[in-house]
């Protein structure tokens, strides 16, 4: 089964850092992941699609099309909105 890695506060909402979820597309896996978990759903999706600044990658490559097909060995990573930088 494809593996989903979760980061930042998504771990708290899911109660895990990593989960295996059934599905043949990124969107299918996402749907199965959020399931009945309202906190997770609210953190990732807005009107059924990933919210602004949510980052989803498939084997390290950014995904924008939720219909992207996935294999058994694939790894999906999901990051909630975050930011970058450092001092001068």
């Amino acid at each position: 089964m494809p593996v989903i890695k979760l980061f930042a506060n998504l771990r708290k909402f899911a109660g895990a850092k990593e989960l295996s979820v059934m599905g043949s597309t990124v969107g299918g896996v996402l749907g199965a992941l959020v399931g009945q978990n309202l906190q997770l759903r609210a953190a990732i999706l807005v009107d059924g699609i990933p919210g602004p600044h949510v980052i989803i990658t498939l084997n390290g490559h950014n995904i924008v099309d939720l219909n992207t097909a996935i294999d058994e060995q694939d790894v999906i990573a999901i990051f909630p909105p975050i930011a970058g930088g450092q001092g001068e």
Partner: protein
Amino acid sequence: MAGWLEKVLEIDLSTHTYKIYPLDMEMARLFIGGRGIGARLLWDMVGPNVDPLSPENVLIFTNGPLTGTGYQTSNRFSVTTKSPLTGTVLDANSGGFWGMQFKKTGYDAMIVRGKSEKPVWIEIKNGAVTFHDASELWGMRVFALTKKLGQDNNKRNVLCIGPAGENLSRVAAIMNDRERAMARGGPGAVMGSKNLKAIVVEGRERPVIEDPERFKFLLYETRKLLAASPLTSQALPEFGTVVLMNIMNNIGALATRNHQQTQFEGAEAISGEELTEKYLVKNAACWACPIGCTRISKTEKVEGEGPEFESTWAFGAQCGIDDLPAIIEANALCNDLGLDTISVGSTIACAMELSEKGYMDSDLRFGLADMLAPTIEAIASRKDIGAELADGSLRLATKYGHPELSMTAKGLEMPAYDPRGLQGQGLLYATSNRGGCHMRGNMIGLEVLGLPKLIDRFQVQGKSAFVILNQNSNAAIDSLVVCKFTNMGVADEYFARVLSAVTGIQYATTELIKAGERVWNLERLYNNREGFTTKDDTLPPRLLNEAPVDGPSQGWVSKLDPMLKEYYRTRGWDENGVPTKQKLTELGLADLV
């Protein structure tokens, strides 16, 4: 005129005298403040014949028309000088409280020239300057000195160097408000070369705001925008910048072991999630900042600000170290000694590779966390191995006959983002006027975070336009001066409106960005005058020739050449990277050359 105080303070350390004269307001209109005015003044004051560590170099401290007005993050200030690390134009800016207090002393800019015969510290109180003997303070570390000189966040603020600056380490920082750093490019060494230990400011002046009603409205609007953005209202305060560790590792763009790999197996152990769960004590904020991204962390040995993502990376992935307490302690030690964490971490990593390959005789090896603290101490005191590392990785690697192992652009150690997985970021490092740096433009928003919109990070064609826009916008923000994190919730357009409300000069957004472009081109002219050419707009050979053998960036190298050609064209420069007469005329810079 509103916004500016229209006064420049010039201090001569050789004679312990000072003079005050009016700020050239036409220059202020064109270059705004901060980094912009700093670059313009440096152009006239420090030419190519000046050694950065000689009395002829200057330190130019500047605030901007927004500084101290109370606009969100209007706490920042800049220092401009010729870099002793790179030989390029150098500006660094910092937050905290000192910048706001400096403005209250009544000056837009302070130029420090010459060299004091004996160690000295300067006190500026309500405009008057007093020179104090600093012989007994020489050798003191930053935290103790800041306390001794009476740091009181909203009233009296201390800027100083630690032992690293005194010992002229070319990776020494200037520190303010205890743990804020003007870190990159070695400004601390310039201050040390002048025998100047500290500058303490205290004042009561306030800038006039031309249109207070409009300003108040924009303050309210900005507060709403920052609160509405998930980045500035939640992500930054809740997770801090270190949350980038797992993201960069996940996409295969986390430089590891002196850029030998692009993923670090220990990333999770040094991640923002781990830091928050085990070591975070509380959040803090700079003056007038509702974002409050500063995080106080604690181990058994230290408690203090940070570490930020880049510092955690420099001592972590870059050195192959996954011991987070050791990294937190290394960061705190650098702050106390007055050192740039990125350059220090990456220089240690370079020494680790040189030693592992048998080119250098030392005990440094990747992964040895216990080596961090003693090596940092040695760098600050220039003792033992520190004598070789204190001047950065390029001088070190060159000494051992392998300059290619220095992960620098124009001699400045690059931060965490590996250009092989981020083509635009590579172009940015190569063209940055102060060398390998992510604060003179940053493509991570566009290439990774989707801010404001995701673009293909491996794409080469068309990247230069994004890089240029980013660089110009950053130069404008650095001239206002406000914190770049504000820009995650507030568009450039708002900054133009606030600048207009404060100064009474109507700046359209395009004019503000054009001011940024003017600053960028002037800095480029400065570097060209110093002898930098297109051959210096490059990256270490490893990043141009050695592709990662696994991970998401597998098979990729930085495709710098075509991007660079496109960049020069889009900038309006000739094929030698020199701004054309037409471009300089358009920017009002033609009379300079």
